[in-house]
């Protein structure tokens, strides 16, 4: 607090200091802003120059493809229910890939998180090792593992499932270990005092505390993984993405199928987002009485 009884000289100095501070802050702010704008502009120009088609020509054509697809789908609207039914198994496969990889990732991520949290790890000396493992799992884009596994195992849902599960394990491992650090260690110590082994301590002492948070994060991951599994299908891992690529490569005349797949994918993502958002809300704030 400023001493109010101080003289006018002191007040003037304070005001001077304050204006200098504000001015410096403003100068820094504007330098940063100019730098940022310059970076964005230069980046955009570089990207534009290295692209096959330029932005100036392309933006008028953005709506060409969607309108073509929609026009064709509209012309054959009667076929839509049949197409939807036809692609439903592929959609279920995509959902299964997402769900299975989320579950496997959840189990592996829980393990990684417990092993890399102080006070809970089974081997405290190996905490840095497990941290690095989950960092590396998180850093690998799914497509890298998926493409390599497709080469060895052949196309199909399993490469996609493994690829997404590895990334999910890393991502959830990090989020979970942050949750773990806020958990109380007292139940663990209590269980240890009555002779519980490590898995009992974790299952009875830690999991009940962190469970809701874990499930909330896993649901968020499930939403992300549906998108990921659709994309991986596009590079040959089965599911709705694979059907989409086929429908698109047939080109004109089959756009009604592409439209049906777009529709299925869109509705699925929106519905799952809504349900999982609602569930996460309930987990975070408790059941509204």
């Amino acid at each position: 607090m400023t001493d109010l009884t101080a003289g006018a000289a002191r007040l003037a100095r304070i005001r001077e200091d304050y204006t200098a501070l504000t001015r410096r802050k403003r100068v820094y702010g504007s330098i940063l802003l100019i730098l940022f704008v310059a970076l964005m502009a230069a980046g955009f120009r570089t990207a534009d120059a290295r692209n096959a088609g330029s932005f100036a020509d392309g933006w008028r054509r953005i709506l060409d493809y969607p309108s073509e697809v929609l026009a064709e789908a509209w012309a054959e609207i009667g076929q839509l229910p049949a197409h939807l039914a036809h692609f439903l198994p592929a959609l279920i496969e995509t959902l299964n890939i997402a769900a299975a990889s989320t579950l496997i990732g959840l189990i592996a991520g829980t393990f990684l998180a417990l092993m890399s949290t102080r006070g809970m790890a089974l081997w405290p000396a190996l905490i840095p090792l497990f941290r690095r493992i989950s960092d590396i799992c998180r850093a690998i884009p799914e497509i890298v593992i998926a493409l390599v596994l497709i080469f060895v195992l052949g196309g199909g849902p399993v490469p996609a499932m493994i690829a997404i599960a590895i990334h999910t394990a890393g991502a959830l491992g990090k989020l979970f270990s942050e949750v773990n650090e806020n958990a109380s260690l007292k139940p663990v110590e209590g269980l240890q005092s009555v002779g519980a082994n490590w898995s009992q301590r974790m299952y009875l002492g830690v999991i009940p505390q962190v469970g809701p948070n874990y499930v909330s994060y896993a649901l968020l991951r499930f939403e992300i993984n549906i998108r990921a599994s659709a994309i991986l299908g596009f590079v040959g891992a089965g599911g709705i993405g694979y059907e989409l690529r086929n429908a698109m490569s047939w080109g004109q005349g089959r756009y009604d199928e592409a439209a049906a797949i777009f529709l299925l994918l869109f509705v699925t993502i929106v519905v799952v987002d809504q349900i999982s958002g609602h569930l996460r809300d309930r987990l975070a704030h408790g059941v509204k009485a």
Partner: protein
Amino acid sequence: MSSFATDLSTDALKLEAGRLFARKRLLNFGLPALVLIYLIYIFFAFDVPGLYDGASWKNGRTLVSDSYSYKTHVTRDNRSGVVSVAIEGERMGAYPEGMTPDWVALGDTAVVDLEGGHVVRFGAGTVEYDIPGYGTVRATPNRSAGVQAELPPGAVPAWINVSKNRLAITTDAGRLTVTRNRAEVFRYFAGWELFWFTLDSPYHGKSLLEVMRLAASGEGGAIWRDFWNNAMWRHKDVAWAIFETILMAFLGTLGAGIVALPLAFLATRNFNPFRSVRFAMRRVFDFVRGVDALIWTVVLARAFGPGPLTGALAILITDTGTFGKIFSEALENVDRKQIEGVQSTGANAPQRYRFGVIPQITPVLLSQLLYFLESNTRSATIIGAITGGGIGLLLTQAIITQKDWEEVAYYIVLIILMVMLMDWFSGWLRRRLIRGEGRARRRPRDPKARRFLLP
């Protein structure tokens, strides 16, 4: 939490507790059982048992061995008698005329020393291979009679494959193939060949110390040029590809932030009194988010063609939806008092937003932007693989050719390093900027602030 009525008798309480226990037990065993049943269903639905038979383990072995080793081909054209040496059998890796590795001796009889007593001789008419512990295999290729092979007496071992027109011998030291038209020896080496300099560069085969001495004596530019334009590993193209990928993530994320911020105001209850506009804006965000990045990529690739701009725009559009949702939620939670405080000093509307609202949401805004910057680096790799651009394109190309697995391994390592670097960078920036806002400065011992220090 369940609460117990206090006026219950002991028996009733016991019953209640028993019921609670039964429910917990059901949950504790039922949930894992459900998960297990689902995974078993997946196991059969995805045909995991059939996968084992369908898998090509040969591909897997090639992939693994090729990713850390390379082979040098010594080939003799049987018609002309010319012997050529090329790394991986590629034109770019061919030894120039008159230059051979020291384990190949040219002459009337070319001698290829595979070490450990394994020696292959390309004679005038006959190819000989001395195999220690087995004997000498002779093969005489002939235009009309195919390949006539003479093996030591006894049964033909499994690692020798003889037919009328072809002889193939695979040993630990290398591999010899003789056909009517040519004889070829592969010798395997560990490591990535020609990673620094190709054979036509004067710096090939020099040690690091030597190269550094040459660089110090003024050849630095030439050394860098030879490395940068390495035709085998294409360091220049790879660096550009990495840069393109990061550029996609950067432009997409920040562009989305710039587009989403003003729109987010329209989607909030407290800043936008028009219900219909609010509702429409929220549905727009939902729509943009629901039409996945995959579909945006497909649509945009039609308009702009392959390249980094397409990827950047796909990320921009998808994330506009996500940011719009997150920012509007943050805006709905701003404290009115701060805005009123600014208003009470006579601030006009822009000033109220600038000093009353923006400082409150900056931490959320920045941390989300930086978090997405990291995750979009990964997305940009994937989008690049679909549209064609950046490191994702190089990776898919290398995988599709199915022979440059050392390049695939190199790209994977680069991608992982790139993502980890972006992760570290965004974490560092987040720490700097958000602490700079003065929130954490008040609580330097904040457990959350310490947590971010972990990578």
